[in-house]
């Protein structure tokens, strides 16, 4: 049974190889079948392994398998080995199931694109790398998956390569995430040099035994690993790449930039939670970064007028919630929100994809409108997705996951009221911007006529995801409502439970508050963007709005501080200042030549004069020296 784990990352890689090597010779149908089929097979395997895993709980908490010995030199040993435990199982489930739905959708979405086979090759490579990332038993193999998903993100963002701007967006993403990755690799070095192993379980055990909480080395290591997480998950201050990454096709945005790759940071922090527990100051920093990011991104989302950019900032904001949860030690809450977020965000992106494709690549929401009647399925599923995003009370899964985070932000040992306040303001903003989107895009007059109706391949995944966005929450109901803890019981096999201060009775109060806030946000959106669109227009033109729209000026800041100086420095030294060594030597030789050749002027009398002077000097020297 356990050897099946090795197949999980391997099958997508085989899919990639088949599509890459033989893609030109396959028909679209076969290519789509290979691409989506490989993910389908992996989903089935994951399902089987999940059942077997549930059966073997609570005795066996993880399965592991070693595939081959990768590096073994000196005292450095790392193998290609995989481990399946509760945490990686949840991630695998999301990656494979949501991935399968997105692949099926893509067969319809990319049907007319000439790079069809290339698309599925890259998507398979991505899924393979992501699975390696979550299943890796040692941190070096995880880094391999980490970089692999970065590569695939680059390839897929710049998929429509003929437009140069897409290439630049892809490059930006790769470079910014690489900055985080470099911090992470230095963290890995420190871990290796102290504990002489890369194996994650061993590292966590040794760290908890040998390092003192709050010691400088654990703080440094945790900071470095956090750097990596911030890069991949697009949190402050490395969040500028994600909005631009919307240049890729919508399935890419759904899979990579909503459901899976950007949550790799969450996975990393959850996996290495021991290190963060040993550095409480950094863990608090995680929470604060999460809180700040969710606010900044929330405001930015409110000001966008590109449909996908709204969703991008929304993703940044929601991952901020996950970081907030991680920061206060609510590990399973963060993972739960990850799962639910994957459902509704993928749904929203896929829906957005249909809208944009149908309106002939129109991204501006103010040029859309009234699509409620024209694309009913899309409208309903999009509505459900937005409701889940806004945490509509009781009916949507989003309510349960977000509410759990908000509750722990206040009630956890390291939580406090300020974090909760940030979360609740963020919830308000979320409701506001999501329903702004709904009202502007789907209500009102039709400004652009949709050109086509989506087929079954595209709508069925939407429906499935919509269903999941509603029922997915029922595996984890809070104490005051249903007290079902299936999810946290599962995750608690790997991650510690959250420690709470003892104020259970206030839970209902906080829940009602968040419900009221969500409803208020929806109502306000209805008021501004539906009843009185003119008010919406005037907000559009305000200076504050423009500031939010540009992502609070981070792009401009980084451009001036880093990009422009580096480019300037490179360009002025293009011809390499060190060339002066060879230029000066040859210049010196030429100069000497020019001087000495003055003495060779071909004039007889000159030569005679030099003879005479020479003889005179020599004679003087002989006679008097």
């Amino acid at each position: 049974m356990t050897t099946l784990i090795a197949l999980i990352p391997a099958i997508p890689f085989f899919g990639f190889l088949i599509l890459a090597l033989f893609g030109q010779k396959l028909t679209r149908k076969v290519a789509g079948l290979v691409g989506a089929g490989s993910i389908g097979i992996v989903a089935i395997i994951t399902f089987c392994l999940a059942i077997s895993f549930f059966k073997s709980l609570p005795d066996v908490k993880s399965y592991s398998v070693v595939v081959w010995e990768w590096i073994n030199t000196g005292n450095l040993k790392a193998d290609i080995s995989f481990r399946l435990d509760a945490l990686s199982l949840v991630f695998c489930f999301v990656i494979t199931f949501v991935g399968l739905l997105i692949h099926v959708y893509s067969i319809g979405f990319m049907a007319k694109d000439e790079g069809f086979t290339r698309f599925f090759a890259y998507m398979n490579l991505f899924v393979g790398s992501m699975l390696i990332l979550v299943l890796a038993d040692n941190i070096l193999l995880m880094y391999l998956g980490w970089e692999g998903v970065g590569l695939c993100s680059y390839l897929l963002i710049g998929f429509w390569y003929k437009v140069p701007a897409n290439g630049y967006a892809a490059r930006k993403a790769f470079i910014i995430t690489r900055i985080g990755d470099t911090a992470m690799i230095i963290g890995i070095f420190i871990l290796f040099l102290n504990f002489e192993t890369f194996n994650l379980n061993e590292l966590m055990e040794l760290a908890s035994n040998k390092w003192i909480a709050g010691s400088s080395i654990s703080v440094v290591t945790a900071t470095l690993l956090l750097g990596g997480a911030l890069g991949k998950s697009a949190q402050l201050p490395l969040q500028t790449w994600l909005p631009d990454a919307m240049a890729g096709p919508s399935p890419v945005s759904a899979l990579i930039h909503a459901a899976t790759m950007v949550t790799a940071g969450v996975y990393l922090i959850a996996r290495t939670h021991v290190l963060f527990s040993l550095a409480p100051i950094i863990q608090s920093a995680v929470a604060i970064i999460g809180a700040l990011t969710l606010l900044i991104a929330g405001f930015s989302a409110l000001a966008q007028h590109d449909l996908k950019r709204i969703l991008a900032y929304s993703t940044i904001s929601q991952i901020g919630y996950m970081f907030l949860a991680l920061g206060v030690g609510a590990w399973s809450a963060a993972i739960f929100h990850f799962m639910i977020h994957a459902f509704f965000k993928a749904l929203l992106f896929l829906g957005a994809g249909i809208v944009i494709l149908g309106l002939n690549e129109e991204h501006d929401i103010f040029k859309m409108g009234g699509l409620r009647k024209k694309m009913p399925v899309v409208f309903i599923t999009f509505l459900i997705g937005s409701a889940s995003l806004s945490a509509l009370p009781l009916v949507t899964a989003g309510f349960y996951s977000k509410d759990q985070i908000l509750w722990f932000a206040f009630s956890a040992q390291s939580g406090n009221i300020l974090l909760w306040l940030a979360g609740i303001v963020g919830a308000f903003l979320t409701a506001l911007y999501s329903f702004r989107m709904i009202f502007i895009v789907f209500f009102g007059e039709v400004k652009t006529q949709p050109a086509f109706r989506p087929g079954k391949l595209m709508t069925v995944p939407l429906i499935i995801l919509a269903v999941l966005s509603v029922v997915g929450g029922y595996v984890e109901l809070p104490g005051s409502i249903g007290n079902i803890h299936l999810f946290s019981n599962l995750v608690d096999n790997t991650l510690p439970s959250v420690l709470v201060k003892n104020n259970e009775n206030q839970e209902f109060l906080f829940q009602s508050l968040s419900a009221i806030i969500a409803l208020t946000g929806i109502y306000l959106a209805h008021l501004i963007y539906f009843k009185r669109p003119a008010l919406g227009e005037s907000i559009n033109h305000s200076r504050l709005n423009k500031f939010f729209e540009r992502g609070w000026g981070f792009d401009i800041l980084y451009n001036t501080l880093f990009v422009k100086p580096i480019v300037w420095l490179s360009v002025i030294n293009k011809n390499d200042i060190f060339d002066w060594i060879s230029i000066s030597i040859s210049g010196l030789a030429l100069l000497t030549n020019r001087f000495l050749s003055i003495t060779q002027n071909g004039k007889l009398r000159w030569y005679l004069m030099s003879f005479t002077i020479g003889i005179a000097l020599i004679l003087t020297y002989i006679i008097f020296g």
Partner: protein
Amino acid sequence: MLTVPIETQLIFAGILFFLGLIGLLVRRNMIFMLMSIEVMFNSAGMVFIIAGTHWKQPDGQVMFIFILAVTAVEVAIALALILQVYHHYKTLDSDAVNKLKDN
């Protein structure tokens, strides 16, 4: 008979040599350069005669006859060369014949 001290004689020869040398260095016309060389030759010959007189040996006079012969030959060849140069360059200016200069 006046006995001129040998130093004076040698100084006289030396002055003659330097006059020839200066003439060689200063004059641009090749014929005059040849003539100056002649003067230098003669002064060298004169040193030989002075030495012969001083040591009361005939060898000095013998050398002077050698020098005369050599000079004659040398002048013949030099004049032939100068004729060629004149045919080619239409001038006897030694500064004009500087084709061997660097670049």
